[in-house]
């Protein structure tokens, strides 16, 4: 299947179209909104579902050396991508060091919804993938935050009356944030109860998954559209370009990292997607605590309003194509 076919097929899926609907509604200033309580629950549902399914897969396949290698690659990428992003942003844009560090942290970390959209695309191609990638997603969330903090501290040593939390406390807090706990917890439960456990709750976490994803993507479209409307003025052209080029750079790095590893094509596509995705839930909250001087209008708008739509619409088909080249 050609890249163009992949892209077209991806663009006319209900998921992408519901995202587009949300985007359009927000840009047209419709009063359509999803209540916050429901948006939070939908996000938890997605974590629960993919965590559990991944764990049940691993219960079948067991822990393998491949899994550990891919996790290691993920951690390293999550740690170094912010450095690359930081250097690039400082070179091409006029962002302050703190803003550049905060933005870069988002690109080192991952977006679960992009990952989920990737799974849909991979499954749409009939490709299998390794269940442990859920665990890889979990370990890739946090290193980028640490990396960004180190960058910001180099640029601006914490002042004496700096009452921010210690990096340790912060990492602990991020490690226990709702998404990580839900994802890892469900993964472990799926692992412990295996395919039998999965069969018990599949009518909730498997069957309606795609429809619920559509609703969540509608919500993401609404929030992204609102962000574009409010936040666009904070983004200069170089920053905007960063939001599209950085995921491509990350995807290239992930492809390289995969070459010696021998993941399946589906698994490779997902690993590349993870690496290319940018966080928009966990990292923004961490940045508000760790680097409150960084402007949220910049990093939230860029991650959610530029990179997420790009990945959803064009990135994922591209990463699939890359994967078919590097995957086993």
């Amino acid at each position, binding site marked *: 299947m050609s890249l163009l076919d992949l892209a077209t097929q991806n663009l006319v899926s209900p998921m992408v179209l519901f995202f587009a609907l949300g985007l359009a509604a927000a840009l047209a200033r419709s009063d359509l*909104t*999803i*209540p*916050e309580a429901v*948006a*939070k629950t*939908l*996000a938890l549902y997605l974590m629960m579902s993919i965590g559990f399914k991944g764990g049940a897969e691993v219960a079948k396949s067991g822990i393998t050396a491949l899994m550990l290698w891919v996790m290691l690659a993920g951690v390293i990428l999550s740690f170094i991508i912010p450095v690359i992003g930081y250097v690039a942003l400082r070179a091409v844009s006029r962002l302050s060091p703190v803003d550049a560090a905060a933005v870069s942290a988002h690109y080192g970390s991952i977006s679960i919804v992009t990952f989920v959209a990737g799974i849909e695309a991979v499954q749409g191609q009939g490709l299998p993938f390794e269940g442990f990638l859920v665990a890889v997603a979990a370990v890739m969330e946090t290193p980028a935050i640490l990396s960004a903090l180190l960058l910001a501290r180099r640029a601006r040593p914490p002042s004496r*009356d700096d*009452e*921010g*939390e210690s990096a340790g406390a912060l990492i602990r807090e991020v490690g226990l944030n709702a998404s990580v706990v839900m994802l890892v917890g469900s993964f472990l439960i799926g692992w412990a109860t295996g395919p039998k456990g999965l069969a018990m709750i599949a009518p909730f976490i498997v069957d309606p998954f795609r429809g619920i994803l559509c609703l*969540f993507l509608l*919500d993401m479209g*609404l*929030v992204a559209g*609102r962000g574009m409307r*409010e*936040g666009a003025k904070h983004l200069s052209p170089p920053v905007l370009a960063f939001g599209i080029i950085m995921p491509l750079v990350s995807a290239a790095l992930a492809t390289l990292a995969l070459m010696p590893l021998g993941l399946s094509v589906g698994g490779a596509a997902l690993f590349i997607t993870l690496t290319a995705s940018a966080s*928009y*839930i*966990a990292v*923004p*909250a*961490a*940045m*508000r*605590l760790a680097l*409150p*001087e960084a402007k*949220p*209008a910049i990093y*939230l708008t860029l991650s959610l309003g530029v990179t997420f739509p790009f990945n959803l619409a064009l990135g994922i088909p591209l990463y699939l194509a890359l994967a078919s080249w590097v995957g086993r």
Partner: protein
Amino acid sequence: MVVTHLKKRLEIIVEAPALHRLTDRLNQAGVTGYTIVPVLAGRGSDGTWSAEGLAGDAGRLVMVISIVDAAKADAVLERVYSVLARQIGIVTVSDVQVIRADHF
């Protein structure tokens, strides 16, 4: 007539990720209590925001109300301000009367 006592009412609007940091300060400053009220949306010098549809905490605000002793108010305010100076948010102080002085 009901005998009332003068207290100060702090009303703090702060971004949600910094909420724990703020309540920790309030506790350290020795306030006897506080109450947290949800906030739907708002506008300030940083622009318009809305909690609708948000799955995460960033970009969301909450309101914290604390009734404090007038004598302690300045000290509490200083601590609160040390958080708010770095985070998005505002604080206002007003006079209120309470019935049981010992409760606060």
